[in-house]
């Protein structure tokens, strides 16, 4: 009997261990040379290309590759080639930290871009700060740049997104909202912000649920939101999880209006949510509604050019996430043109960038504001028939 137990227990234990073996590395970049003043300018990007952030990381990777090729075809920066090294962090914090260290120590990059989501971006931050290398994140949570010296970001801040949501809720006379949020960095602190910012508008947060970005079943959270006393619900996450949450919400038979965050600014949201997306309101950049913008919109031309280039190159529509990467690249390139590769000068130049028209908004960085965008970077979009439609500028 004893032997049979043991014989059975060993394979079972090993099978459990197998879970730990799934994380096996894959580097997409190469490495070469050292970074002196004459050689190529090196930009290292750490993106969530595989794992839960894939819907964000893939269009970002495409965009960066496209822009790098275009720049080098037209002669680079002051005759210097720009070498783009992209690494996949597999949507993990430790993957992001490892890739960042490699890019700085082995590849000697002059500037870093990434990561796609807040958690991995926060993992990159201290490494960039310690090594004094400028980092431009393409993720949203304001904590990425709060009080930082070397870190910037191009996605609209979460607090301005909440501001737009609560303003709209106030206009519609909602008094109570309930929240289902991403359990990782992107959703961190959102409940507190809603509570604080809701006070001025007479809006109370009555319930908060959280979900993992890798989750597939949302019945538990949505059942609780169904019983929550609220006039409207805010779902705060990225696709596909936010789309699946939306679907579960509708299928469970709740009909209270839903707000989503700018984490759903892509077409994949509709792949996950299907018809249940109809009526969802979300603040986001102008990219997905570019064809509906007023004629005098300052960003329209830049966005249209990007959409056309992206479509021609990859045969699919870009997402707002690709737009964040586009902006990060342009902020970096503009700074390299003015400052060269000296890190201090590079950082100071990014801090003094103003009026830069991008995909996600018009950037005005300063020493105090490393995110560069205010509420005007957002429009309100409403989901209808499998696409985003402009509701309010």
């Amino acid at each position, binding site marked *: *009997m004893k*032997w*049979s*137990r043991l*014989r*059975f*227990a*060993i*394979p*079972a*234990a*090993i*099978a*459990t261990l*197998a*879970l730990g*073996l*799934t994380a*096996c590395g894959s580097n997409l970049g190469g490495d070469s040379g050292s970074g002196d003043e004459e050689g190529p300018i090196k930009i290292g990007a750490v993106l969530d*290309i*595989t*794992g839960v952030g*894939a*819907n964000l*990381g*893939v269009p970002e990777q495409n965009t960066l590759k496209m822009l790098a090729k275009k720049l080098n075809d037209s002669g680079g920066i002051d005759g210097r080639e720009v070498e783009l090294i992209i690494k996949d962090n597999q949507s993990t914090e430790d993957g992001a930290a490892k890739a960042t260290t490699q890019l700085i120590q082995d590849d000697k990059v002059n500037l870093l871009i990434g990561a796609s989501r807040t958690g991995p971006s926060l993992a990159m931050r201290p490494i960039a700060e310690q090594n004094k290398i400028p980092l431009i994140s393409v993720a949203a949570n304001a904590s990425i740049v709060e009080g930082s010296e070397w870190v910037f970001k191009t996605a609209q801040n979460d607090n301005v997104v909440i501001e737009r949501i609560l303003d709209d809720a106030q206009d519609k006379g909602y008094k109570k909202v309930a929240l289902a949020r991403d*359990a990782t960095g992107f959703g961190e602190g959102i409940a507190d912000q809603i509570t604080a910012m809701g006070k001025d508008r007479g809006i109370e947060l009555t319930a908060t*649920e*959280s*979900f*993992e970005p890798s*989750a*597939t*079943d949302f*019945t*538990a*959270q949505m*059942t*609780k939101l*169904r*019983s929550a006393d609220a006039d409207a619900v805010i779902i705060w996450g990225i696709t*596909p999880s936010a789309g*699946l949450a939306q679907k579960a919400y509708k*299928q*469970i*038979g709740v009909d209270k209006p839903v707000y989503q965050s700018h984490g759903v600014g892509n077409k*994949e949201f509709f*792949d*996950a949510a*299907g018809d249940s997306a109809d009526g969802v309101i979300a603040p986001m950049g102008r990219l997905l509604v570019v064809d509906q913008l007023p004629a005098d919109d300052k960003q329209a031309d830049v966005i249209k050019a990007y959409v056309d280039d992206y479509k021609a190159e990859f045969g699919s529509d870009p997402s707002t996430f690709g737009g964040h990467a586009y902006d990060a690249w342009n902020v970096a390139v503009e700074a390299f043109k003015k400052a060269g590769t000296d890190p201090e000068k590079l950082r100071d130049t990014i801090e003094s960038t103003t009026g830069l028209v991008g995909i996600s908004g018009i950037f005005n960085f300063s020493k105090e504001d490393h995110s560069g965008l205010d509420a005007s970077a957002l429009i309100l979009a409403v989901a209808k028939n499998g696409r985003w439609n402009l509701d309010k500028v």
Partner: protein
Amino acid sequence: MFTDFLQLTAAGLSQGSVYALLAVGLIAIYSVRHIVNIAQGEFASLAGLGALWLVAAGMPLALAVVVAVLSVTVVAIAIERLVIARVKNMTTLISIILTLGVSTLLQALMLLLWGPEARGLPAFAGSNIDLAGVSIRSQELWMLGALVVVGGGVLLFYEKTRFGKALRACAEQPVAARIVGISPVLASIAAFAIAGLCGAVAGVVSSPIFLSSWSGGLLLGLKGFVAAVLGGLVSFRAAVVGGLLLGMLESYVAGYVDSGFRDGVAFFILILVLIVRPAGLVIRRAEARV
């Protein structure tokens, strides 16, 4: 409150039916060859992504699903012929390491072929039902139905048909089975075909709700393994009950404790069962089996 409980139960049962189907596939192989197939969950991912690919190429959903399931069954047979059958002295331990390798290989192939994004098939035919405030998605009924039809079919095959009984004889007494004319080669092929079929069906019916991705199979397969362990790796009935229980327990933990603990439930149960009751939920257990 009671409505919430029933809602969680419904979600848990449908999720559990996927675990149960995967467990049936695992036991189908284990009871014939004493092989633990870590790549079981990959059959589900492969079928889901394959069907998605066919649908995107213009094939009607129903046909795409059937073609994907049959193709994955063929893939399972190919794995048996090309990898498993080549090993002379197969032990359970070797089988785990070997199939873990197969699992990694399949994941890499799926990543290369279909990219990293998780996607879902369109929902199958049917409309959602609302029962006294508990809403049940039509796809959940498909998932439970698939368990009843496929899982039940496999059970009847192994326990009631001559060929099924012969398969099990191969595991208990390989030499004797050969003497009485049962081909161990054929038995092994049949076992893998059944496992491939079960995994593939689980993959396509769950894809509309839980999505398919290149990386999702391993965790799914391990949860199926936990369900199979509840069945002592031999009893289909206990494994099906185990799978459904696991699904419900996950749902309750997510609903009443914290959704973050959801994936931990399976492994907590695994450890608990291995310590307290290694034979699983099987009640009639001959102590003589050493």
